[in-house]
């Protein structure tokens, strides 16, 4: 890796070497906490289900970020892949009469494949356009899938939805197991995001984000690069949909908490922007803050209106005051502080601020 990757504004401040080492340390500690979490509070069903949803969103936002964060294309239709993954699991489990429990979860890779297969034509159509035209197209395609899931009732069960065979895991083990399944998706997704970021492919994506025409002029094959990122980002979202469907025990085509929920689309963007799009840690932080808050509020207030209002207000605050997100803003602060400290200590500023 060249030094440039380590000194990127969003990747971490300070000297390339120590910054990278600190990043690994933070990741290791975060993972250790995530693994140990159920041991501390595993018997509390409310807390564990919130933790499960947080992990599902961490995986989905990290995956969304691989496309939208790195390429700068705002996709508001990733619920397509979430829904396709969810239906894939339910339909396959029913049609093939899969044994409930761990065996059903072996279908999850198939959910990822289904999402990828769907992502190819969707990407080929939508990625011909840019900016708000792209945004509107992703929204329109999302509604097409919602309509198909509602109308193709012989396949999807119509408005009643589809349920895989009943999973008889007992509580509280049920929530703890699903928590670890979700965690097993978060880790490779974040690794994938990190690998893309430091690869040539990632650099091409970020070149597209900064100036697509110039990137093309410099020889980046923009369409294949964008499409690859789009498809790659769909796969973990599809798997997350499969896990979500099996956790709930069934899935509906439309409505709150369903397979094709417009709030899911917008939640990914909200979480990504709050944490900081285009970073590794930002989506994780955004998912943690937003999902923990909204789930807590849903448990506190029976009226769904409150959590909608809180979500919306948070979104306004992020767009108006924090458009770059927490992680990049905080990184800038830390960097400025270091530069100041180094300057007052008489050390070379150039060393810390290349």
């Amino acid at each position, binding site marked *: 890796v060249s030094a440039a990757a380590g000194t990127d504004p969003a990747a971490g401040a300070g000297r390339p070497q120590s910054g990278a080492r600190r990043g690994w340390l933070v990741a290791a500690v975060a993972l250790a906490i995530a693994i140990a979490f159920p041991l501390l509070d595993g018997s509390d069903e409310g807390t564990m289900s919130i933790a499960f949803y947080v992990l599902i969103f961490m995986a989905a936002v990290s995956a969304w970020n691989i496309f939208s964060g790195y390429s*700068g294309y*705002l996709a*508001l239709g990733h619920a397509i892949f979430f829904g396709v993954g969810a239906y894939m699991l339910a339909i396959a489990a029913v049609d093939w009469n899969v044994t409930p429990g761990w065996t059903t979860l072996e279908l999850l890779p198939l959910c990822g494949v289904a999402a990828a297969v769907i992502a190819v034509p969707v990407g080929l*159509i939508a990625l*011909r*356009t840019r*900016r*708000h*035209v792209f*945004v*509107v*197209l992703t*929204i*329109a*395609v999302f*509604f*097409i899938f919602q*309509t198909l899931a*509602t*109308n193709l009732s012989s396949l999807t069960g119509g408005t009643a939805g589809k349920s895989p065979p009943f999973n008889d895991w007992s509580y509280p083990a049920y929530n703890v197991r699903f928590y670890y399944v979700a965690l097993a998706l978060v880790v490779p997704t974040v690794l994938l995001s990190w690998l893309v970021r430091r690869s040539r492919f990632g650099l091409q994506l970020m070149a597209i984000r900064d100036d697509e025409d110039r990137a093309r002029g410099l020889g980046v094959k923009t369409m294949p690069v964008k499409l690859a990122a789009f498809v790659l980002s769909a796969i973990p979202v599809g798997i997350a949909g499969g896990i979500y469907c099996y956790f709930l025990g069934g899935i509906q085509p439309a*409505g*709150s908490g369903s397979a094709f929920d*417009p*709030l899911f689309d*917008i939640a990914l*963007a*909200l979480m990504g*922007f709050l944490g900081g799009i285009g970073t590794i840690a930002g989506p994780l932080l955004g998912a943690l803050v937003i999902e923990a808050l909204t789930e807590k509020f849903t448990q506190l207030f029976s*009226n*769904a*209106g*409150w*959590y*909608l*209002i*809180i*979500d*919306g*207000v948070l*979104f*306004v605050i992020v*767009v*108006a005051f924090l*458009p*770059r997100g927490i992680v990049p803003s905080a990184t800038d602060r830390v960097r400025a502080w270091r530069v100041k400290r180094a300057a007052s200590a008489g050390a070379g500023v150039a060393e810390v601020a290349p």
Partner: protein
Amino acid sequence: MSFDALVQAVLDGVLTGGIYALMAAGLTLIFGVMDIINIAQGAMVITGAYLSFWLQTKFAIDPFLGLLITIPAMFVLGVVFEYGFLRRVGDRDRTSMSILMSYAFAIILEGLLTLGFGTDFDSISAPYVNSSVHILNFYVPDIDIFGFLLALASMGAIYAVLYRTKFGAGLRAALQNRTAADLIGVDVNRTRTIAVGIAVAVSAGGGMIYGATTPFYPDSGYDLISRLLAIVILGGLGSIIGAMASAMILLVIADIVAVAWEPTWSILVFYAVIILVLLFRPQGLFGQRAVRAQ
């Protein structure tokens, strides 16, 4: 499909098309003034419907008479939307961020409506909602005729304001060249705020008719926004006349699909139109220019 059914479908399509054009007018106006795709338009129409519903159930005010109250109320909502929300969007990624901002506004509206009215379906009732006129072999609901007339009057009023008043001239100037408009003494910010206010105020009428013809609940905005987007995209973003024509075309096609095939599939007409138009003719049927880059 019989000939009578076809004629009935076309008749319904033209009348409801006018009503949909009225609902879409705010969307196309805000795009014209601000270059912003207002995802909250659906939620605003539903807000208008709930305002009329509330006045009628609480104070027994006739929905059409109630417009005297709901139109100013929605104007205030539009001013709040522009001043408190749209204007707070920074210059960085302005198009994408303002879509997110209007989405956030839609979620807040939906939350407020859920708190106030719950999540069950409501509908506005009046004597003329269930009565209809019988011409030859065809039935035309009275409310559709009233709605169509209201749409024509409102669209005519918007057109007159845009093209026959000093304010309209300033508005069009601000749209074409912000700096030049500033220089010749147009207060661009104030003009924009008022224009968004007018755009949202127009949705009061559309919402009232929608609420009288279709059962609605706070989530209905999502169902609406895709139809409205299809209408303004086909008509050419920013074009009032385009919205009127494309709304009728789309509603007639959707009605024919509903009669010939199944009502649940007619919504796909709208989505397909959004995709095809954006891919092959982004300026729509009546737009002179391509969708502008920010």
